[in-house]
């Protein structure tokens, strides 16, 4: 029985989700050196937006609303808390941990702690290299690819992309050249949060949705950035491919919660052997 194409496609849809979550993490943690323990909450909020949207009859509505809400929440978080703490890393960790706990518990008070699920909006199967494959997963892969392409174009060839690269490389010099570094950071943070929320919507029909779901994505995205190497889109791709591929690979063979544990252990080994990541020097 030929399960290889199936494994690869399933891995690709997980990798797509990880890329969307980790682009924000790469900017926030990899480039701005801010440890945001509330990053998983953007994903969780995105998934709950999908729950509400599906209940009022329009899953697709969530795809438009969640990124905006996520970005809004991200910008709020940056401008009220994180902005004050760029020089106090331990306090950033504690404050964002606080935000994460509060957001989780507010969602739990509102929705309850029992998990929700969202109906698959594209229930069909398509034939991929002779293997029937869920249409929705193909859609997820396409979405991530499109967003990534747009992101790379924006990073390379828009004014904002230029400002961001300048602000990250040398904030003092960028400021001297007239770049509003604070605003650039804020928008970058918002974009990262919006993408994570978008990933939350996309992942909603594939998983169960509960207030604490963000933690697993938070840890994965940290390791995507650390394993892949900070400071480049290539690093995010490599890290997502590593985590996503091994997780799908072991899920096919073992099932249960062991695969995640094995992948985290593998990631720790990679961190030990290549502390600067797979893609760098």
């Amino acid at each position, binding site marked *: 029985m030929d399960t290889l194409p199936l494994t690869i496609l399933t891995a690709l849809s997980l990798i797509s989700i990880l890329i969307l979550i980790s682009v924000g993490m790469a900017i926030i943690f990899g480039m701005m050196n801010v440890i945001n323990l509330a990053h998983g909450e953007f994903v969780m909020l995105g998934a709950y937006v999908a729950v509400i949207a599906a209940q009022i009859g329009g899953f697709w509505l969530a795809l438009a609303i969640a990124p905006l809400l996520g970005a809004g929440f991200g910008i709020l978080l940056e401008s009220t808390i994180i902005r004050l703490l760029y020089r106090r*890393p331990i306090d950033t960790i504690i404050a964002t941990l606080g935000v994460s706990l*509060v957001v989780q518990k507010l969602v739990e008070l509102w929705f309850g702690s029992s998990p929700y699920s969202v109906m698959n909006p594209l229930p069909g199967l398509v034939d991929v290299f002779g293997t029937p494959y869920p249409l929705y997963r193909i859609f997820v892969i396409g979405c991530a690819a499109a967003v990534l392409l747009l992101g790379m174009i924006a990073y390379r060839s828009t004014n904002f992309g230029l400002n961001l690269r300048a602000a990250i490389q040398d904030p003092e010099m960028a400021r001297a050249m007239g770049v509003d570094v604070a605003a650039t950071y804020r928008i970058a943070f918002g974009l990262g949060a919006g993408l994570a929320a978008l990933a939350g919507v996309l992942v909603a029909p594939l998983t169960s949705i509960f207030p604490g779901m963000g933690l697993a994505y938070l840890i994965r995205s940290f390791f995507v950035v650390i394993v892949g190497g900070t400071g480049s889109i290539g690093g995010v791709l490599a890290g997502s491919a590593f985590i996503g591929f091994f997780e799908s690979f072991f899920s096919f063979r073992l099932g249960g*919660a062991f695969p995640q*544990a094995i992948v*985290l252990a593998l*990631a720790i080994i990679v961190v030990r052997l290549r502390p600067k990541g797979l893609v760098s020097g």
Partner: protein
Amino acid sequence: MSSESTRPAHGRMALTVGIGVAFLAAYPLWGTVYGMSIVQDALILGIFALSLDLLWGKGGLPSFGHAAFFGLGGYAYAIVSMQLGNEWGPLAGLVAALAICALAGAILGVFLLTAGIRGALFLIVTVAIVQIFHQVAISWSSLTGGDNGIVGLPPLGLRSLSEHAVLDTPAKRYFAVLLIAAAALLLLDRLCRGRFGRRLAAVVDNEPRALTLGINPSLELTKTLVLSTTIAGFAGTLFVASAGVVVPEFIGPLFSIEVVVWVLIGGRGTLIGPFVGTFVVWRLSQEVSSYDPRLWQLAIGSFFVLSVFLLPRGIASLRGDAARALFSRVARAVRP
């Protein structure tokens, strides 16, 4: 010279601990059995907080996954003692728990610390480690009992020596835990003020300089990590042996956050602070949680966020006169 200047400080610590022990030793005179069990649990969790403070406060290595070792000790005790029965099981379980936690600390130390992994990277790795342990504890149900854990654990003690050498009554457990907690606090304080502590402080202060002075930074930090994981495992063993049950929550990420809270509020790097912090915060959490379990995390989360605004020098400054400064700051803030 420095040893003279540290003696009185250790004396003050001994005095504080002595007063605390005297008070708690007299507590059964008026306290209820239920009250004693609460104090005893708080003392055990205080030892757990102590292990994190040794690693984070003294060794500068933030662990946000320290329940991994508390739970590892607890599960090792549960599995071994249930296998071997009441005669030798508890002793073998304790030895197994301490050994496996020391081994885990040594492997992690050699593997990570010698590669120069510190600070934020170390923190993220510890979060991953507790996640791994938690998932294994849930998934490997033939060994760990899965979500239900393992119940009916025997109490600590040595039944083959004497029927009385078993901590099977609340009073025996209470006094044994009190003695162990006081001893742990005093020994660690001694250790941190001695040669080991000064070498460690040199490493935390400036690694390259410590290296030129002939200190091996990774070795000192690994020793600290091993000591810390072993103490955490010991606390876990005491806790599950007195509760008679081990569940996956003891090895989980949320419990790891709880101990971070105790250490931060008690005052990182002071050893006795986290102990007191555990007493106060854990008790408070029990009270609030009995009302509604969700409120506690909401309160802790809000406290963390507010601390950024109210305590610009960090939560660690929340002690003694700093607390008074906080109140005057709040008073000024609310005055129109």
